[in-house]
């Protein structure tokens, strides 16, 4: 089934999918085909990443899961887990440093690929985001931190919930609400 996405993409080359001029039920069908193909691809990519990670570890690596709705701060794993690993894969042929935004409900210590702590920023999810996601997701906060990923490779960042008294690497931002 690993070529389903290829076929779904091919179907979506029809002119009404490219231009957005299909009837709504046809657009829904295009979306469903792409979703099925994407789900299979994610499973395949997850297996590959899991195998690659296992080579570097004495601990068996599970298959990583993807979160489609990170843009609205929804990710069941990060919202509810005291410990988890973020794996970033970089498809570019050069190293990239970027910022990631993870939906959480607690404060976490972030450890980078070299084992060193990474500075992060913990802030409230905006009201707009809460409205957008409607009934999905329960994260009240976002943890924001920089990641660096090598060319055509991956980096693991480990997040562990902070216990009382533990040194914080995350910094709470200052919030200003100017009076109009």
């Amino acid at each position: 089934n690993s070529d389903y996405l290829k076929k779904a993409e091919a179907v979506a080359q029809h002119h009404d999918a490219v231009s957005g001029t299909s009837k709504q039920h046809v657009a829904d069908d295009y979306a469903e085909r792409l979703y099925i193909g994407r789900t299979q691809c994610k499973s395949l990519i997850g297996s590959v990443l899991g195998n690659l990670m296992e080579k570097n570890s004495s601990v068996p690596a599970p298959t990583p899961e993807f979160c489609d709705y990170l843009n609205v701060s929804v990710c069941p794993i990060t919202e509810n887990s005291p410990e988890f690993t973020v794996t970033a894969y970089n498809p570019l042929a050069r190293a990239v440093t970027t910022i990631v935004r993870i939906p959480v409900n607690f404060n976490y210590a972030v450890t980078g690929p070299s084992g060193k702590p990474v500075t992060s920023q913990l802030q409230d999810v905006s009201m707009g985001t809460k409205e957008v996601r409607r009934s999905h997701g329960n994260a009240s906060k976002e943890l924001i931190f920089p990641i660096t990923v090598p060319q055509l490779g991956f980096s693991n960042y480990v997040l562990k919930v902070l216990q009382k008294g533990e040194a914080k690497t995350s910094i709470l931002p200052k919030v200003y609400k100017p009076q109009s």
Partner: protein
Amino acid sequence: DEVIENQFLSLTFDGSTGLLKSMTDKRTKSSIAVSQSFHWYESSTGTFLFSQASGAYIFRPTHPTPKPLFDGTSVGMTVIKGPVVTEVRQQFQPWLSQVIRLYPNKEFAEFEWTVGPIPYKDGIGREIITRFDTDLKTNSTFYTDANGRQMLKRILNHRADWVYVNSDPTSGNYYPINSRAYIKDDTKQLTVLTDRSLGGSSLKDGSLEIMVQRRTQHDDSRGVGEPLNETGQFGDGIIVRGKHSVLFTSVATAAAAHRTLGEEIFMAPSLSFSKWQPDWA
């Protein structure tokens, strides 16, 4: 006035309205006055002389001047300043908000807009744009990409390869924006990179507008047979969120900046998650 800045950019916001007021390139110390806000075109349902309605195929506004979505008082600005990101949250309408972000060591400003559900109960089609109004002297010229590759020069009310007939002053000047568009004068350039294919134009000097979402209530009689009105899972319309990455640079450094950034947006790292602690050794 409120200022947010990083090593490359400084953005000044009007303290009373909360709107963006100016951008400064800190390397060249050059500035532009820039106001960014949202507007909407009312979709035409056709006129006595020409029955063409705005719909899935056709963009035809009733009036060439869009209506503002900023009420003229305040966008209810909240500023959050931290070590990883500085952001300004703006609320234009109950269904329209935006977050403007600056990251350390990044040349661009990120404008994340959230639009929808677009009101529809009054029976009026709405086509929402974001617009950057600057003091750049652009001489009726702007640039859009051809599928993320060559940047093509566009001139208002003009085509290089056929006689231009001005059938609609607004949509007749709209072009596809697949990855980026820019306006510039002799020394300064404002580039907007999109995260999806959109349409846009520069209808007056120094201005760059990009349509972010449309909800029409009439079929345009071009074959689709229904209005462009996606009602979504909850039946009241969809909510759309997207990002524009905005560069303000010298003309000389703009191409290197937007080519590099465009690549990073198009092939961004993919994130996956596991409940697992790897062995560092």
